[in-house]
């Protein structure tokens, strides 16, 4: 089920009301059934994968806890890792790897088992289960934390299944850790109107970001990315800029709705975005963007590679960002995007002493506002350009886009033939940034809930009117659903 569907408008109130009506000891069951229904509505055929992953990690977690011999414990850890990554690899990456191998073999004139004919390739039709990257990483973090004895395994199978399948964050995160979320399922949650209102306002803000802002930017982005050969210069530059904002608003909208929905039910999910555009460096950007994934990569990949395998820092950063790219999708475009981000990070860290020395010799302090703005601009444009690979269907497409973007011979930007929409898009980007500057996503409800009743109700009616009148009628999926 999509958050931005009519079905969710009925689903969520029913789940929420019955959650508080049902006695505490059965609530986990109600939430679990609701979560499976939510997933079944979206992906009926592959729910068994979600269940298989749940059973595997529940079993491995208990075994790792009960056994004392390190070798046996390690075996169960590897069973969990191989089982989860195996499923992820098969369903998400198998076609990508076979196609890439096939292309390489064909380049050297070696006949592939399909004899070069597409219809003969055996595994062409593998469905990608929605949210597999998210729940795989979530269950893996549980197994690794149990192995590291950072968390106690859960005895209650149902509560563990709920931790894996909790519907607000099941298909697109945030990727929660067991020590944060699991204890919350044990707590007896009472009706707290202030908390419920806070959650609902957060959800409303998320819907606004998605339906009014992100989807609106998507109209322009889709037009220029559909056929980059039809445009030159400025419209393509604006398209890439809009896409950077679109993906940010789209994904942060999803997370905001998820956090809000969980809050209504009495649970706290982690923040996934912390005003990412207010970064001061590349490192700072990645501390603010998709926080739950970056923390996962830091704790379960970066640190072990650095500390246990003794790899160099540069190489480790490249591996982490390679994985970051590949995690997003089975396509070379994502890999290249990830590597560009990694290289930016390496350049920043590698040139830091030189840059500082140079600035010192020139007498420019690091706090100089002009310097800070220039740094911000360079990083922002680099990230925006790297996202062209993220958005393009293949590498050639991305290269053509960049090539045409750099041939600055067109200033005609109104490619959707709708000036009102163009200016509205730009105005909304600025508006959201201003609001984020003051409040960030997580404190948005303060803007409304701390006001008088008349103001609040005025806002609620205005919100309905604005969403109805200004949302884009396209039934768009959230971008991160595909991962």
């Amino acid at each position: 089920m999509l958050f931005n569907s009519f079905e969710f408008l009925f689903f969520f109130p029913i789940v929420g009301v019955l959650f508080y009506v049902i006695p505490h000891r059965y609530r986990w069951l109600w939430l679990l059934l609701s979560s499976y229904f939510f997933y079944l509505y979206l992906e009926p055929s592959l729910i068994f994968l979600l269940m298989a992953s749940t059973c595997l990690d529940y079993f491995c977690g208990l075994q790792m806890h009960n056994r004392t011999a390190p070798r046996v414990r390690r075996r169960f850890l590897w069973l969990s890792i191989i089982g989860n990554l195996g499923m992820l690899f098969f369903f998400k990456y198998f076609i990508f790897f076979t196609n890439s191998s096939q292309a390489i073999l064909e380049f050297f004139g070696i006949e592939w088992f399909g004899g070069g004919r597409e219809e003969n390739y055996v595994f062409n039709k593998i469905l990608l289960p929605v949210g597999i990257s998210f729940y795989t990483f979530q269950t893996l973090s549980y197994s690794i934390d149990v192995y590291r004895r950072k968390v106690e395994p859960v005895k209650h199978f149902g509560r563990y299944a709920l931790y894996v399948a909790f519907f607000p964050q099941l298909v697109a995160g945030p990727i929660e850790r067991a020590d944060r979320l699991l204890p919350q399922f044990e707590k007896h949650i009472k009706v707290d109107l202030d908390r419920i209102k806070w959650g609902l306002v957060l959800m409303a803000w998320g819907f606004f970001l998605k339906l009014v802002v992100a989807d609106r930017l998507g109209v322009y982005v889709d037009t220029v990315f559909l056929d980059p050969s039809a445009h030159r210069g400025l419209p393509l530059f604006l398209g890439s800029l809009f896409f950077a904002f679109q993906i940010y608003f789209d994904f942060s909208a999803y997370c905001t709705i998820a956090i809000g929905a969980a809050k209504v039910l009495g649970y706290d999910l982690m923040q996934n975005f912390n005003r990412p555009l207010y970064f001061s460096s590349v490192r700072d950007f990645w501390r603010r963007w998709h926080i739950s994934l970056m923390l996962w990569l830091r704790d379960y990949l970066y640190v072990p590679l650095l500390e246990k395998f003794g790899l160099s820092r540069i190489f480790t950063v490249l591996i982490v960002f390679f994985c970051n790219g590949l995690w997003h999708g089975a396509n070379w475009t994502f890999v290249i995007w990830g590597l560009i981000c990694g290289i930016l990070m390496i350049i920043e860290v590698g040139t830091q002493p030189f840059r500082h020395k140079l600035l010192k010799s020139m007498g420019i302090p690091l706090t100089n506002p002009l310097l800070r703005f220039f740094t911000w601009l360079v990083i922002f444009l680099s990230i925006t350009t790297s996202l062209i690979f993220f958005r393009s269907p293949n590498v050639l497409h991305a290269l053509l886009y960049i090539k045409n973007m750099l041939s600055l011979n067109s200033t005609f930007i109104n490619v959707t033939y709708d000036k009102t929409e163009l200016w509205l898009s730009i105005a909304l980007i600025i508006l959201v940034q201003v609001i984020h500057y003051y409040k960030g996503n997580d404190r948005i409800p303060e803007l409304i809930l701390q006001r008088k009743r008349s103001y609040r109700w005025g806002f609620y009616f205005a919100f309905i009117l604005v969403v109805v009148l200004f949302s884009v009628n396209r039934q768009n999926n959230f971008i991160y659903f595909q991962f």
Partner: protein
Amino acid sequence: MLLTATYLFFARQLTQTFVSDDYAKFTHQSASLILGLSRAHYAFDPETITKQLEEVDYQGPFLNFAFEKSQSPYGEVYLNAILKKIPESTAKGIYIMGVSPGSFSASNRLRTPEDILEFDSGTMLGKMNNMNTHPNLEFVRKCFGRSLYKGIWPHDHRISTVFHDNGWEEFRLYAPGYRITQESIDHWQRETVSGYSKLADVIPEHVSDYRIEWFGKTMDSLQKRGLVYLVRVPMHEGVLALEDRVWSDFDKTIDSIAREKGVPYLNYRDRAYDFETYDGSHLHSESAKAFSKDVGTVIKNHIVQRELVQYSQEEY
């Protein structure tokens, strides 16, 4: 409740104004249809064709039910939509099916018939269930692609374009305070040719057996409701050269399908100098009207001749 009521109110309000270039194609049934991709969408003016067929016994009115390339290549989804457009009782309709390699191609990412069907199901025609009501709120919800405030504050769309209720999109070279120069046309045509060739490298496509098969099925279904004509719309020679490179025996293939099914194939591939495009691929207003007149005349002659043959056979 309030949200839904507000939505319905403004959605209905929007349908009383200009919704989008394709909205008129989803508001009523039509016994005679023009099918194909964007070339047919721009090239066939139903009003001109109707005028040419005044003396012919057929069921109208005509509706231009052609869409842009990604929306209506031949396939199961397009056929289902077409069948919903035609009233059950139709027996004497006329169906002009535009043909070009684009109508039979599919991205190389779509490898199996199931892939193509899944892709087509995501198009406007695949998403829509209700094809023939006005106001069509389903269209607004699923396909409008813009915001409901447009019902209060109307669109500013291209001054060069006029959207007709019969589905035809007219591209005008002249309008009050507006004129497209020959220089612009030449530039657009060059851009289209270079753009198409680059796009073919970037998003490679293949000729799909699935689409050819469903093209045949579409013809079979339409022949039960009336007469079918296959038409290749004229285009710029550069675009034609590209299409010939992609599918060298396209005309031969279409011709053999037409013979097999017993329908005429009106091939205008070499008539670019008689019917000019504004961008290399799509006919502008004057060309479209002249072209529609020409096609209408050919169809009229064919029907008259056919009736004569039938009459003489009956006499005999």
